[in-house]
């Protein structure tokens, strides 16, 4: 068969493998058509730009508003941007714009398709009509069913309390998670404005008016104003108490956005949110009100409807109740700084709700300027402008784009091998791949600089690192022996892992740069053990990628000359040795770290076992090869099995639910994808083993033929 045809078949197969892998990864994200939103107006770009860089305290560090918005959008929407149709035109809303809508234009935000639902059966359970299993819904679509969702949530919450989280089935877990997202969404809306219902019931139209009325002199003046009529006095006093309580209950939980003001106080209250500080001050009032309400209820029962006849008697009983309520509150004072901060937040809210871009810009600018001194990154590192730049540079997305472009050029290059065009294309591919490698490394360095720690601290961090190191190594190998194969390997490897990283970031919906727990806070160990082990993973993955090329290439006859085959086998052997060295050293370093932290070198934790399995398998490959039990094809088949072992150690153990690295409860989707991956690799291994059997048969036949001809010659 024509070599070009065989090559096309080979490329197609590799693309199919990548596509299957990509689909599996993509299944973590819900695709959906853009929804039509009527009357939507976009925010002024200058205001959005200013808002992006607003410092926010969240997850234990200070970060730009943009990063926080991304996190919320990932968790609720399951994507990096929101596609909508406004007046027949497609628009893409960034996370910042979306969150600004939720906070300051909630009626608009309610129309947006915010909520990703992976299993619409949970909505059907509460009576909502749905079209597809996985889709996105707006809050206004869900609003009529909120009551039933709340009931379902409470029932599940009780079940968790009684029988633990593990007693929940898959649908209950999804319902529970969805209900919590709705609560989170609700708490983001109008964070600094008092609910209209609370305003109406309490009679306070703003926070400022509340603070003014709470002034003791004002209270006394108000009572004096009521005159000497007993019923009137009771009415005023009781009314004031009730209004206070209603108002306080409306704002004592100032929502997640009270994080916007960073409290630089030292001691217990350091870094606490406005909401929690306000709630702390308000708590005695609310608790006293509790007791007051009980006692008033008892008095009501005793006296019935108040009139001129029983008013005095009631007042005599009421007064001690009132005094009992007010006496513990003598020391309740809202500090000036607390009041000012709360009022500033209210001003910000009102400016944004006004719709005037100029006013929004001015208020936001003034707000940022006022509190810029409060921004103190402390020991955790951080840089608002640095992080904005990181988000803007989108290193890893650009890396994917470069690699995909390089891949297209690579196919063109392979079709024009031996020509001048082929030569130029080769260097273009090399250049683009190198650029992708530089971008990835730059992204890793930039993140590391912002976090002020070693580049790998979380599962997400391992992926770009593996890509950066892997691309570098493959380019180096390609530089030594310019055959072009390593470029193909680099492109496939880079695209697959970066794409995995992107999908994981969205589906995990966490800020991957948040500070680490105490036990991991050691730059020394993060830089040694974690980096070395990750390099070990990288080596095994690169070896397996090359082996994929070998087996599929050989099946299609593309890798047919002995020299190329030997070259690939030697590289794989070298990578296996590399993996062994780094995995072994990294594993032992991990044990030493564990011994220093917890007093046990080896605890047979699943993650430790995973690392040990990699070491064992690499040893098996090397010893089996030296012992002659496996040869060329066998090495590649074993290397692919090594890939499965690495995925087990890298990913699978995190979902087992035991050990120090477990993720709590299993992600069913991720587990399905892992099993699909195992199945796919087994299939490729079977192709390899079948090939090996064919080769053995061929050799045996050749040997028999040569023996026969020897015998024949001798006979002659």
């Amino acid at each position, binding site marked *: 068969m024509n070599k070009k045809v065989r090559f096309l078949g080979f490329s197609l197969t590799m693309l199919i493998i990548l596509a299957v892998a990509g689909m599996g990864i993509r299944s973590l994200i819900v695709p959906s058509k853009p929804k039509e939103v009527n009357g939507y107006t976009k925010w002024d770009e200058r205001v959005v730009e200013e808002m992006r860089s607003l410092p926010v305290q969240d997850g234990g560090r200070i970060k730009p508003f943009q990063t926080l918005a991304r996190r919320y959008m990932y968790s609720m929407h399951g994507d990096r941007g929101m596609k909508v149709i406004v007046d027949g035109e497609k628009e893409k809303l960034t996370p910042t714009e979306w969150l600004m809508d939720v906070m300051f234009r909630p009626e608009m935000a309610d129309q947006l398709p915010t909520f990703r639902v992976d299993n619409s059966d949970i909505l059907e359970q509460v009576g909502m009509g749905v079209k597809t299993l996985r889709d996105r819904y707006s809050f206004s679509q869900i609003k009529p069913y909120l009551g039933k969702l709340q009931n379902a949530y409470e029932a599940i919450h009780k079940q968790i309390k009684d029988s633990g989280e593990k007693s929940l089935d898959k649908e209950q877990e999804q319902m529970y998670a969805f209900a919590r997202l709705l609560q989170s969404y609700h708490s983001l809306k109008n964070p600094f404005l008092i609910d209209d*219902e*609370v305003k109406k*019931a309490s009679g306070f139209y703003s926070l400022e008016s509340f603070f003014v009325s709470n002034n003791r002199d004002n209270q006394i003046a108000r009572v004096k104003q009521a005159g000497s009529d007993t*019923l009137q006095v*009771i*009415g005023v006093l*009781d009314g004031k*108490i*009730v209004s206070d*309580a*209603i108002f*306080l*209950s*409306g704002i004592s939980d100032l929502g997640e956005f009270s994080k916007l003001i960073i409290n630089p106080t030292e001691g217990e209250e350091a870094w606490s949110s406005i909401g929690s500080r306000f709630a702390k001050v308000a708590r005695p009032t*609310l*608790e006293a*009100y*509790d007791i*007051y*309400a*009980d006692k*008033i*209820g008892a008095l*009501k029962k005793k006296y019935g409807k*108040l009139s001129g006849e029983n008013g005095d008697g009631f007042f005599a009983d009421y007064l001690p109740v009132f005094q009992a309520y007010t006496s513990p509150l003598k020391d309740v004072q809202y500090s000036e700084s607390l009041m000012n901060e709360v009022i500033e937040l209210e001003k910000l809210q009102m400016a944004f709700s006004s719709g005037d871009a100029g006013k929004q810009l001015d208020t936001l600018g003034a707000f940022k300027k006022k509190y810029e001194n409060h921004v103190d990154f402390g020991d955790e590192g951080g840089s608002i402008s640095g992080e904005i730049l990181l988000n803007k540079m989108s290193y890893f997305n650009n890396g994917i784009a470069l690699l995909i472009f390089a891949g297209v050029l690579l196919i063109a290059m392979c079709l024009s091998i031996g020509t001048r065009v082929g030569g130029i294309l080769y260097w273009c591919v090399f250049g683009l791949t190198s650029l992708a490698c530089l971008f990835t490394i730059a992204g890793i360095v930039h993140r590391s600089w912002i976090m002020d720690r070693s580049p790998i601290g979380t599962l997400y961090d391992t992926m770009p690192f593996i890509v950066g190191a892997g691309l570098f190594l493959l380019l180096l190998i390609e530089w030594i022996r310019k055959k072009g194969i390593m470029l193909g390997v680099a492109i496939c490897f880079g695209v697959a892992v970066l794409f995995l990283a992107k999908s994981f970031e969205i589906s995990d919906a966490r800020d991957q740069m948040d500070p680490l727990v105490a036990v991991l806070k050691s730059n020394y160990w993060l830089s040694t053990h974690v980096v070395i082990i990750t390099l070990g993973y990288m080596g095994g993955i690169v070896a397996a990628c090359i082996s994929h090329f070998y087996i599929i290439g050989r099946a299609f006859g593309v890798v047919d000359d002995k020299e190329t085959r030997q070259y690939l086998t030697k590289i794989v052997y070298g990578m296996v040795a590399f993996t062994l060295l780094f995995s072994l050293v990294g594993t032992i370093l991990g044990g030493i770290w564990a011994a220093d932290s917890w007093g046990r070198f080896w605890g047979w934790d699943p993650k430790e076992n995973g690392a040990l399995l990699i070491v064992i398998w690499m040893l098996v490959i090397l010893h089996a090869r030296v012992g002659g039990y496996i040869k060329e094809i066998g090495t590649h088949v074993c290397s692919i099995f090594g890939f499965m072992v690495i995925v087990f150690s890298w990913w699978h153990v995190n979902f087992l639910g035991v050990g120090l690295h477990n993720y709590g409860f299993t992600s069913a989707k991720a587990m399905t994808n892992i099993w699909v991956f195992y199945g796919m690799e087994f299939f490729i291994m079977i192709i390899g083993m079948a090939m090996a059997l064919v080769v053995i048969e061929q050799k045996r036949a050749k040997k028999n033929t040569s023996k026969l001809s020897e015998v024949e010659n001798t006979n002659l």
Partner: protein
Amino acid sequence: MKFRSLRTKFIWLSCYSAILVCCKEQPKEMEVDERRELCQYDDPNIFKNSYETILGTQPLSWRRVNRTDFRLLNYAVGNATEVAVGQVDGGGVLANLNRWEREFGQDVMEDLSGLATIKMFGERDAYVIQLKGLFQKKMSGMPVKAEGWAVTGIICDIGNGSLVTVKMMGPEDEVKAEQESLMDFAKSIRINSLQRVKERSKKVDGVNQSKKGGY
């Protein structure tokens, strides 16, 4: 001897030994001679469990049994007597003493005058009540009736609306025999921290109409 048969014998011997070792029978009787040195663990007054809120010097003839709902300390005494230590928030000393009165079909008290007291937690007064007769109550949802029973109950107000109760209940003769131990035990009771204040977790839930007052 052929080499092959030697190898085969060696393999069989190894397997047989392995099976023998695996199927070793466990002994039915063992002699114990190991003894440990005494340490702080053996101090009866030390808090061993980080979540224990209350402790007392247990009389040696009492057997501590598992804590149950509302009973922080639970003891079995003699054949059928039990001692329970609990902590109650609210109600007051009188209300709780009257609850015990009702269990024995006795008339409720108007006040605490006339009741014996002992000192608990150093300086605080604890009221002692002694009752006997027919005990009737619903326990764990089931009605319980016992003739010839007695109860000795001790209640102490530890402040902030919190009460510590010590109640011994069982056949009259057993309860009578353990009076002195009970009083010694009650006096020895201590709380992990007297500064602990149980927080009321009630919140004003949005606009709570029923608590509006309305005057």
